[in-house]
């Protein structure tokens, strides 16, 4: 390699070394990034004890209580969205029948019959597909645009629940149980 070319190569090498140093040592402080979710309640009932047992065929079967979701986060620069999801791990049997009462041919309550209302919004069925849970068994509770101003912040949301049995007029007498999971994700 002749003199000018060698100088150019040396210059390029210095530039690359500098870029490598930047990438290794001036990266965002990822260790401090977190998202935490806490709930103001852990159970919702539709039972005789709360005088709100399910009525098959009825569109309105409100849960006995609402649940507050508290979200806290400290996100790395570059995050552009924070999304909170609710989901079940089964779309066809979000609330499953009691196996001790019925063993074969027993209907369950699908996630499409479970409706969630966020704050003052409208009830929406759990029919979306999200990064979590079973396909068609989720609902996006909120999607927040993240900027430098709110990359570290918190919020509180109130969830109300309804079981819409207008499509299940023949749901047999039984006890149906399930678990709704709440989880958040920041992207990209």
């Amino acid at each position, binding site marked *: 390699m002749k003199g000018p070319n060698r100088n150019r190569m040396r210059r390029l090498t210095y530039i690359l070394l500098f870029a490598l140093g930047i990438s290794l040592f001036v990266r965002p402080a990822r260790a401090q990034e977190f998202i935490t979710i806490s709930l103001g309640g852990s159970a919702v009932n539709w039972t005789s004890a709360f005088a709100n047992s399910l009525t098959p065929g009825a569109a309105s079967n409100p849960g006995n209580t609402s649940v507050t979701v508290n979200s806290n986060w400290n996100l790395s620069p570059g995050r552009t969205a924070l999304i909170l999801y609710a989901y079940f791990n089964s779309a066809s049997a979000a609330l499953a029948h009691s196996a001790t009462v019925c063993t074969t041919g027993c209907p369950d309550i699908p996630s499409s019959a479970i409706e969630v209302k966020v704050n003052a919004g409208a009830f929406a069925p759990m029919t979306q597909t999200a990064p979590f849970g079973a396909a068609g068994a989720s609902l996006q509770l909120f999607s927040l645009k993240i900027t430098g101003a709110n990359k570290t912040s918190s919020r509180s949301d109130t969830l109300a629940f309804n079981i819409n049995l207008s499509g299940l007029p023949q749901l047999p007498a039984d006890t149906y149980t399930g678990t*709704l999971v709440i989880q958040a994700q920041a992207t*990209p």
Partner: protein
Amino acid sequence: MRTTKSTKILIAVLVMALSAGAQTVARSASAAISFRAEVAKVLKLQANLRQVRQAGVSAEVFATGPSTLRVAVQISGSAPVLRLPVAITCNVRSYLLQARAASSSSTAVIGLAGDPGQDPLGRQVLSRPLPLDHDPVFAMVSSPAMAAGSTDTTIELRFDPVPSGETRTVTFELSLLESGR
């Protein structure tokens, strides 16, 4: 200008370092809410007629509870038959129709009279005609498909012949019960 081998390696290391620094999604831990929902049991047995007058039979029907009927029947003649139209409302997976005679000396054969082609219950019910004083359970429904609204059917009682010129009174109770299966 040709790129030397050492420069190529340096570029590769840089690309790797940058890709390692690329953002992946960040997720919270999950939080759970348990759901528990009950559908209350409904068992209703209702008479579609309060009074029934048929050849050799005169009956009065009283509701003694949401799932219980008391039937008082006067019978006469050689082949008295009572056909009692009832409505069954039920959302349990299996149930029993029970007939219990107030007097053990009553003799009758009881069953569901519905035409299997017309009577929805007749298609699904296991109807077992039995002497009224022998086994109080005369019909059993055991099908998840029966967990549905109201069904009209006819309960039929065929009594033993009554000597000519005599009248006999039979009282019995009809009950709809969950079979516990």
